[in-house]
């Protein structure tokens, strides 16, 4: 079943100069049609201004389409009257870990979402406990978020989403402001959620490495979808990716260059282990 269904989505916004007169209309998303299967792990890649964040914000109705339709769990974001049930189904984790934590105590922040949904107090306790356990932050329950690392803060933000029991989680460059350790923590956590709880993950990033383990990779450029496939399929198109200012993972690039020089290597090598294996087989 498809959890997200996007049909001919167009999003335009107007730019104004200092005198508040309209200068131009910018088309951030240009006729995107996309459906995402429930339980899958999808990564959207694209450089700055490619429209990837804008696309994600349409899924939970933070932005509404200029044209076309977006359906989340069968609800049209433009027509729905129950905005909260719709948003409850699609939690969103943002880039800056500090700017999405609302309360001064970890447990109260995790409870913020379900509190808004009116979950009764007796059930809140349990939801918070489970959500914190899921992201491995139970020990920090009574702490102040200010003393946590970036990766830990993002895990708290994820727990805040989990406490709303969403069907899918949209991650808008959640690792852009983290160090490598924090980045690994966060990516590992979302992979676990996807595998163990079957939560659909839509990960937006510009780190190619994070796309390697996804079920499906989508590449955006200039508001359009330009590639869509498994990581192997997408990363074997090295030249095309480079044409839209993106770099493939280091090992993929190395394999690609070696292949160009005449070595008999398979397409779309994604990990160091795979590369070593392929080199060994050549021998």
């Amino acid at each position: 079943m498809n959890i997200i269904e996007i049909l001919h989505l167009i999003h335009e916004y107007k730019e104004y100069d200092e005198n508040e007169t309209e200068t131009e209309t910018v088309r951030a998303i240009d006729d995107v049609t996309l459906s995402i299967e429930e339980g899958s792990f999808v990564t959207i890649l694209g450089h700055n201004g490619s429209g990837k964040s804008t696309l994600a914000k349409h899924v939970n109705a933070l932005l509404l389409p200029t044209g076309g339709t977006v359906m989340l769990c069968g609800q049209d974001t433009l027509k729905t009257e129950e905005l909260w049930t719709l948003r409850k189904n699609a939690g969103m984790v943002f880039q800056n870990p500090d700017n999405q934590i609302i309360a001064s105590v970890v447990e109260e922040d995790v409870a913020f979402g379900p509190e808004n949904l009116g979950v009764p107090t007796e059930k809140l306790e349990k939801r918070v406990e489970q959500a914190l356990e899921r992201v491995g932050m139970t020990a920090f329950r009574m702490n102040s978020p200010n003393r946590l690392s970036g990766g830990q803060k993002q895990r708290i933000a994820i727990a805040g989403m989990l406490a709303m029991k969403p069907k899918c989680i949209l991650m808008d460059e959640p690792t852009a402001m983290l160090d490598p350790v924090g980045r690994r923590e966060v990516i590992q956590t979302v992979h676990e959620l996807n595998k163990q709880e079957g939560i659909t993950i839509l990960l937006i990033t510009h780190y190619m490495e994070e796309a390697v383990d996804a079920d499906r990779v989508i590449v955006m450029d200039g508001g359009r979808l330009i590639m869509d496939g498994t990581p192997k399929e997408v990363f074997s198109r090295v030249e095309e990716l480079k044409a839209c200012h993106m770099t493939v993972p280091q090992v993929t690039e190395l394999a690609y260059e070696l292949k160009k020089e005449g070595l008999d290597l398979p397409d779309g090598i994604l990990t160091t282990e795979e590369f070593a294996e392929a080199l060994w087989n050549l021998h």
Partner: protein
Amino acid sequence: MIRDITIGQYYDADSVIHRLDPRVKLAFTLIYIVSLFVGHGPICYAYAAAFLAVVIVLSKVPVKFMVKGLRGMLMILIISALFNVFLVQGEVIFRWWIFTISKEGVRTAILMVVRLIFLVIGSSVMTLTTTPNDLTDGMERSLRFLKVIRVPVHEIAMMMSIALRFIPILIEEVNKIMKAQIARGADFESGGLIKKAKAMIPLLIPLFVSAFRRASDLALAMEARCYHGGDGRTKLHPLKYQAADYAAYAALLLYLGGMITMAVLLP
């Protein structure tokens, strides 16, 4: 570390007073202030002092912290004492040039100062034993009735708690911007008042810009988490009165009753 700064003057301890519901402590402050204005004469103030002493002992907060609040009040205390001493008319006990001191003047001055001191210490009991977040919670609940006249109580409380969360973050940001500007040759130290104030501009503008960006991010994050005002919202830890809270209310009423009786009976 800057992230550990305490906002307000909360003193962390585990005492009966700390554990009381914030609403009780708000009521305590209010009733205590009222009692100070009801009472008059040394016996009433001795009674108020005794009550306050019991509360302070129960709160386990060192007296030194209580007195701290008085330091800022020193000027006001001195001025109000002087005014009363020289301006209140009555039986003259001292006269020199244009200054006269009356017996009544000295009496009201002493009472006024004592009253002010109790007022300050009494209200710092509340801020010393209640975390700012609890205080916000307590105010939201006790002022809920104002919603009838369209005071956005929930929104104000939400703003206060968000401000509390972001103060340490913004302080850290100030430090960062300051260092960045110093590295570019900005001078925050030298010069007179005006020059120093002008030097703050390159600090304040980036701070404001970033604060607005944070606010817009936060609003988006709150919306994504289904925030839609106070209606239909539940709480993880709703305020609930315990037996000790009712006992505290009873003690407060008893105290106020005693004060009123004394004020009426004593000349």
